[in-house]
């Protein structure tokens, strides 16, 4: 029996270590007695991995923080604790499981808790924290000004009462927050209101403060084979992020750099609630499955902001400016779904899905601008955006032979959009309402063959036509073709797949086409449970051709082309050897975009003869990360681990973002 447990542990081990990043924590390497310890009717299993992480970065550390963000210091890398009632009749609970990850300073931290008592309750809790750093990177020194150095924190509580009963109740609470420092920008000294392009943009500091609370209550009733599910929720949101600046800052605008900002303050409050509810009624029987759902989500945000700025405007005059905006926005969303699956024979499945959804976005914003040149602007805006979509599709899957399945289907979608842009409701001239309808028809087909035991070959395709796409990049005349081969034989698994996705969206003045092709392969192999090897390779190709129009200096260039090419190769490899006391892991990950094959930023390419566009049409880079780890079993309850991981990022056309990072850790994994 003990041998069986060792085998089980090794099986668990063999499934780990292939996601590549990060090299720490070491778990789920087992430590402690495999059977756990017994105490007062419970079986207890626990383990902790604690140690020190180190980091050395050369190059652009901000970019490293944006990509990986692992730092230095002592961490509780990972922990696991479980208590299981051995007879299923624990006093307060039958099972309690706690897991943690990255506590003590890692950028990605989490705690999960699960407690349940048979027939009485089940409680799930999760807490996550993410240190998010984004320097607003742009290419070629474009001075990205929207920097964020914030922390996301999220927690979820879900309590189910009477989880195995014919009627059960659920209570839930979620809390999400984002806080921290940031750098943003504000447009000032506009002459005639917010849509006037004469102003200058200035960088300003911000202190991000966002919070959302979500309360849920619901239940489920099973009766006569049907299940009725209902959920009522309330989301309360508030954003009280202020902006401020004091000093002397030159603006971005026209004429370039002529404005000056000496002081700026903006206080704002954006608060609101989004009540929602959902009702579902469904039944699964032997030959038919049917479910219907109706949801409604409201949404109201009330906002007000007050900002003052002092400085010199773009015309050289001293300027102080005050802007007050206030109003509210509303967006109710209603949906209905009806899904029916019929299995008239064991070989035939017919699935039908119909959905309707309706969205209305409306609101008003009063914008008042005062300045010291006696100008006063008072604008009232109202904007409406409504979307109504009806979609249905019907698929049939048929098993022709035991080794051959075929399927086909048809889909239809109809979407109506109504818009009243900048409709002024306070006595001003109304904006014209616009209505448009897009109809999309699509068909799918495919087959699945199993010519040999363990071997499956699949092919799928879809073709679709849309009558009135919303943007030049939306689906209009598209088709996809994909194929996959999968082979499984005991400890060996091989996969290969390819997919093409083409879309052509052509209009009179401009055309857009997108060609995406992906090719992937993977192999997993384990030998006698102590050697595991895994490798994957992928090529992701994308080329898009779109019509663009822009100003180059004073000249308007209306019929230009933007041709973007990406040829991205990816490879991962990992190997793991488990010996008597020592466990060794090595891994390697590579991402390389060779772009359109150019080795210099500027060249003769399809599109405008401007350096900025030529640089942006392809983006060759290389991102690689080798890693290695050794784990040594000191005794039954302690393992010692040592790991190293390297991150190398290199852009071919702009060296300012390149970095090299050496990370590693040493830790003890122990149980007590």
């Amino acid at each position, binding site marked *: *029996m003990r041998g069986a447990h060792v085998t089980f542990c090794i*099986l668990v081990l063999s499934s*780990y270590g292939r996601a590549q990043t990060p090299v720490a924590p070491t778990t*789920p390497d087992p430590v402690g007695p495999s059977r756990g310890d017994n105490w007062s009717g419970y079986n207890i299993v626990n383990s902790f991995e604690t140690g020190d992480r180190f980091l050395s970065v050369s190059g652009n550390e901000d970019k490293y923080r944006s990509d990986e963000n692992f730092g230095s210091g002592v961490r509780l890398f990972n922990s696991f604790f479980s208590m*299981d009632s051995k007879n299923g009749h624990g006093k307060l609970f039958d099972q309690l499981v706690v897991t943690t990850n*990255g506590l003590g300073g890692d950028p990605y931290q989490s705690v999960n808790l*699960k407690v349940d008592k048979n027939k009485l309750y089940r409680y799930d809790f999760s807490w996550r924290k993410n240190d998010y750093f984004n320097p607003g990177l*742009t290419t070629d020194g*474009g*001075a990205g000004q*929207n920097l964020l150095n914030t922390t996301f924190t999220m927690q979820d509580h879900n309590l189910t009462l009477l989880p195995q009963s014919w009627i059960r109740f659920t209570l839930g609470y979620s809390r999400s927050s984002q806080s921290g420092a940031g750098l943003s920008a504000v*447009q000032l000294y506009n002459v005639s209101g917010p*849509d006037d392009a004469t102003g200058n943009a200035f960088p300003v500091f911000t202190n991000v403060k966002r919070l959302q609370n979500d309360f849920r209550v619901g239940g489920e009733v099973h009766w006569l*084979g049907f299940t009725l599910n209902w959920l009522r929720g309330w989301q309360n949101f508030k954003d009280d992020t202020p902006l401020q600046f004091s000093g002397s800052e030159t603006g971005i605008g026209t004429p370039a750099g002529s404005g000056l900002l000496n002081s700026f303050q903006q206080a704002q409050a954006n608060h609101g609630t989004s009540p*929602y509810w959902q009702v579902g009624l469904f039944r699964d*029987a032997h030959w038919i499955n*049917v479910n219907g*759902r*109706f949801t*409604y989500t409201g949404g109201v*945000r009330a906002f007000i*902001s007050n900002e003052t700025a002092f400085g010199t405007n773009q015309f050289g005059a001293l300027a102080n400016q005050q802007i007050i905006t206030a109003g509210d*926005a*509303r*967006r109710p969303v*209603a*949906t209905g779904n*009806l899904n029916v699956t019929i*299995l008239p024979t064991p070989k035939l*499945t017919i699935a039908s*899905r119909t959905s*309707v*959804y*309706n*969205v209305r976005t409306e*609101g008003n914003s009063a914008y008042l601008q005062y300045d010291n040149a006696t100008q006063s602007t008072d604008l009232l*805006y109202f*904007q409406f*955006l409504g979307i109504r979509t009806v979609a249905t599709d019907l698929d049939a899957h048929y098993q022709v032979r035991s080794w051959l399945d075929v399927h086909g289907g048809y889909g239809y979608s109809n979407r109506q*959009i*109504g818009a009243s*842009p900048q409709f002024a409701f306070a006595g001003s001239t109304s904006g014209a*309402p*616009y209505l448009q309808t897009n109809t*999309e028809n699509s068909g799918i087909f495919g087959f699945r063959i199993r010519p040999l035991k363990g071997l499956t070959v699949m092919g799928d395709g879809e073709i679709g036509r849309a009558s009135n796409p*919303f*943007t030049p990049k939306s*689906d209009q005349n598209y088709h996809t073709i994909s194929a996959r081969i999968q082979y499984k034989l005991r400890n060996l698994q091989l*996969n290969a797949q390819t997919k093409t996705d083409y879309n052509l969206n052509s*209009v009179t003045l401009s055309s857009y086409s997108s060609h995406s092709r992906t090719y*992937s392969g993977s192999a997993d192999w384990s030998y006698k449970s102590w050697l595991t090897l895994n490798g994957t390779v992928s090529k*992701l190709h994308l080329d898009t051709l779109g*019509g663009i*129009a*822009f*100003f180059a200096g*004073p000249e308007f260039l209306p019929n230009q082309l933007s041709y973007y090419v990406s040829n991205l190769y990816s490879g*991962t490899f990992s190997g793991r050897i488990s010996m008597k006391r020592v466990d060794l892991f090595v891994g390697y990950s590579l991402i390389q975009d060779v772009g359109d094959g150019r080795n210099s930023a500027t060249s003769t390419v399809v599109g405008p003869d401007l350096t900025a*566009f030529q640089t942006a049409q392809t*983006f060759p880079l290389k991102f690689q990360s080798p890693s290695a780890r050794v784990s040594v079993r000191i005794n039954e309850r302690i393992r010692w681990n040592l790991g190293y991981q390297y991150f190398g990022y290199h852009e071919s056309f702009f060296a300012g973002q390149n970095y090299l990072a050496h990370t590693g850790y040493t830790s003890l994994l122990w149980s007590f």
Partner: protein
Amino acid sequence: MENRYHARASQRIGLYVVQAFAFFSIALAVARGADPPKTGYVGSNPCKTCHADVWFKFYKNPHFKSIAIGKEEPANTGCEGCHGPAEAHIKAHGGKATIIAFSQLAAKPTLDACLRCHSNSLNRANIRSSQHTLNSVSCTNCHSIHKSSTPKFLLAKSQPELCYGCHITQRAQFSMPFKHRVNEGFMKCSDCHNPHGANAPTWRMAGRPSMINQASGNEEACLGCHIDKRGPFAFEHPPVRVEGCEMCHYPHGSTNSRLLRRPVVFTICLECHNGAGTFGRTKTGIPTLSAAHNMTDPRYQNCTNCHVRIHGSNSDPLFLR
């Protein structure tokens, strides 16, 4: 006028769903689930003799609950609850032909067996028509009932390794320089996807569901975490609501630090803002840039430098504040 039209449409949606459901309810009222055999049950105790390794740790298995209750019908509890009556199996001294062995079952009977108990959850209401089921991916492809390596949901492997086993391209996407932190353990695939099937999305053209969870019942999964992007805003950037976040972003990973579909900002904006065709909410083409935007100047190549509220604004139709 549009307000009234859309308000009525909301009411009609509910009416259609109720009417259609009433029709199917009649058919379902006479439909019955797959009944298990009535005889041949011997209880779980004899199983311990040969399958001690399974029984030894079975008290940690969520399915142990049915045994602990002690009042369930034989067909709904213990080993026989899933594997069927064991009398013939014991008489034959084992063998996979004399009992329900899931390693020998095809996808559909496997699903039927699990749904006998697990069909009563809204999260699994669409499992029969999910892409996984229609492609013969059944419960035991992802769940390992007796050799699970995860503390919840009896998964055969932990996420994302489980999903990467088939979704190879997604592994490459999550290896990009900038990505959602799935490999780091901060997120899971199931934070955004429902592997048991989902309802049609409320963005793009709806159509076939791609197994994406919906935040707040009917909104894009991204908005569950990116709370500041949700709005509503007095001035919404229409493609965000009409086409969804994927219009501009790769959700898994990208070479751009904002997960944009292009390495730089301005090309992605210009590809739509070209004034061509009948695109956009006014059907007159999506507006081009004003003369103030000299694209030879790097300061104008980072559109979001100034258009800081690009997802939606309460103060400015041009998303400047």
